[in-house]
């Protein structure tokens, strides 16, 4: 795809905050029109910074990006006119009602006076808030706030939608409601969606393509199916009773597949090439060497495994708090500490 195409195109994007690490360190990606792109990574990995650059709220240090064919640096106004963004949990005024938010947003987006009210009602209806429209937002649940946020982002019928962690902190029901609406937007209205998330499941359910980001770099990219297939084999983790036996364990396990990294320092791990079918042979092999095990665990691939495989650290460890805080500081306008 070339940069003149619609959708989103990002090339070698860089951003560094004062006295901070590189929040975005050479990111390139492409999102086709009407596609949902899941941008997956732990806190502080650089997801929000990227979104802020793509939504024109932040100027990159290097690289370039186009949204709907417009350059995010040179054609900010055109970019803003073609995008909608729900940037974070509470960018709402608790003192105003849902309808008042709509009124404000439709007016500020420059909708003709006569269409503001019908458009607002239509959107409130669509996200299931029409009955709550005259209640103050302060009394809304987390899910209702996110849905209102989404509806506000859609006021001017944007062709590209940015959602920054739209379901963080939501209960499962609200989460799947939101998922349904987002995929409807992409499938039926052909809206391009760029969504950041910390949840593999979310990316899995929603996204056509997933990019995994860690410390400002994309470490893996592809369809969820491809990503899962890549590490689709289960991992076996064995903890020896005597740590001195680690090497002997490793030798046995090596017969069943490549070594895998493990979050537990005492464990020896292997990616089972033949899947769970190999378990019986593994145990026989260990037994044949008279090795004693403290624990024996098999688990299916998770986000942790993808992340682990690509970065050598677990997702939880990868919670890149230090860089998150500097990112938060510099992005104060739109970035709440998680």
């Amino acid at each position, binding site marked *: 795809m070339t940069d003149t195409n619609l959708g989103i195109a990002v090339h070698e994007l860089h951003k560094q905050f004062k006295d901070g690490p590189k929040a975005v360190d050479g990111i390139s990606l492409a999102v086709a029109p009407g596609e949902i792109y899941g941008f997956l990574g732990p806190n502080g990995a650089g997801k929000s910074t990227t979104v802020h650059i793509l*939504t*024109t*709220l*932040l*100027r990159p240090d290097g690289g370039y990006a186009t949204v709907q064919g417009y350059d*995010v*640096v*040179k054609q*900010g*106004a055109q*970019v*803003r*006119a073609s*995008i909608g*963004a729900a*940037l*974070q949990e*509470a*960018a*709402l*005024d608790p*003192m*105003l009602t849902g309808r*008042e938010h709509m*009124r*404000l*947003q439709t*007016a*500020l*987006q*420059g909708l003709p006076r006569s269409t503001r009210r019908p458009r607002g009602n239509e959107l409130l209806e669509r996200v299931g808030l029409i009955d709550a429209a005259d209640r*103050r937002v302060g009394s809304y649940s987390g899910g209702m706030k996110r849905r209102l946020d989404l509806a*506000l982002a859609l006021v001017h019928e944007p062709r590209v939608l940015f959602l920054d962690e739209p379901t963080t902190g939501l209960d499962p029901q609200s989460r799947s409601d939101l998922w349904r609406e987002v995929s409807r937007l992409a499938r039926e209205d052909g809206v391009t969606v760029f969504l950041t998330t910390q949840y593999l499941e979310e990316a899995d359910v929603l996204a056509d393509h997933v990019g995994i980001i860690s410390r400002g770099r994309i470490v893996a990219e592809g369809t969820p199916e491809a990503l899962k297939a890549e590490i689709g084999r289960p991992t076996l983790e064995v903890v020896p009773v005597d740590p001195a036996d680690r090497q002997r364990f490793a030798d046995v396990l090596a017969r069943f597949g490549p070594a895998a990294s493990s979050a537990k320092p005492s464990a020896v791990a292997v990616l089972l090439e033949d899947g769970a079918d190999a378990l019986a042979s593994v145990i026989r092999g260990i037994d044949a060497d008279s090795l004693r095990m403290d624990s024996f665990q098999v688990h299916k691939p998770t986000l942790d495994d993808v992340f682990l495989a690509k970065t050598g650290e677990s997702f939880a460890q990868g919670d890149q708090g230090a860089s998150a805080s500097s990112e938060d500081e510099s992005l*104060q*306008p*739109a*970035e*709440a500490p998680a």
Partner: protein
Amino acid sequence: MSATSTQVGELARRSLVRTLRQPASIIPSLLFPLVFLALNSGGLGSATRIPDFPTDSYLAFFIAAPFVQAALFATMGAGTDVAKDVQTGFVSRLALTPTRGNALLFGQLAGVLAVSLFSSLTFLVVGLVAGVTFESGLPGMVVIMVLATLIGIALSSIGVMLGMRSGSGEAVQGMFPLFFVFLFLSSLTMPRPLIEQDWFRTIATYNPVSYLLEAIRSLVITGWDGRALALGFGIAIALVAVSVFGASRAVRMRWTRT
């Protein structure tokens, strides 16, 4: 132009609605100045017996204070409101619409203007009911309202500037004592010529708040005093110019977009 006026109008409406729905933020700004007025005009009533005191009603002398005090509260209110908008990301939401940054500032100030007119009117009515004679009559009262509103806008813009720059309601509230000091180290409780401590009179003479108070005061106890009015309005207008400029720059700083 019509787009801009729509933006300002809607944002003003929002600022007003938000203020009116938080009685806790508006009641103190009326109540405290009135309590303060009652306690001081009572406690210092006999001060009018000091030789050369310009009026025989301390209430009439002191009624200038609530107008300035209410502006102080409006400052804190506008500042914390704006800081909240920065914190919640509301400002970013606005920045993504075609709205101009200054529409937010002027919308906020229009809300302040409405509240300020209302509180000024309240103080005038309280004064009249309590028996204050306004020497400059009805036109003078109108001028008082205009001046009080200018002061409100000037100080609130400082609040907006602080809120925008810091993005922290606490940082804005933390400035309150400073404003408080400015208010007290002025001719708030005593006419400047009757302040006997030289150091205090010097500070009060250099403190612009003195002239704001004295302009309002002159309309109550003297009538039409051109010099006092020129000083008061001059300082108020200069403050408006400087603080609106500062606030507008602060808004632009937060309104970062390409």
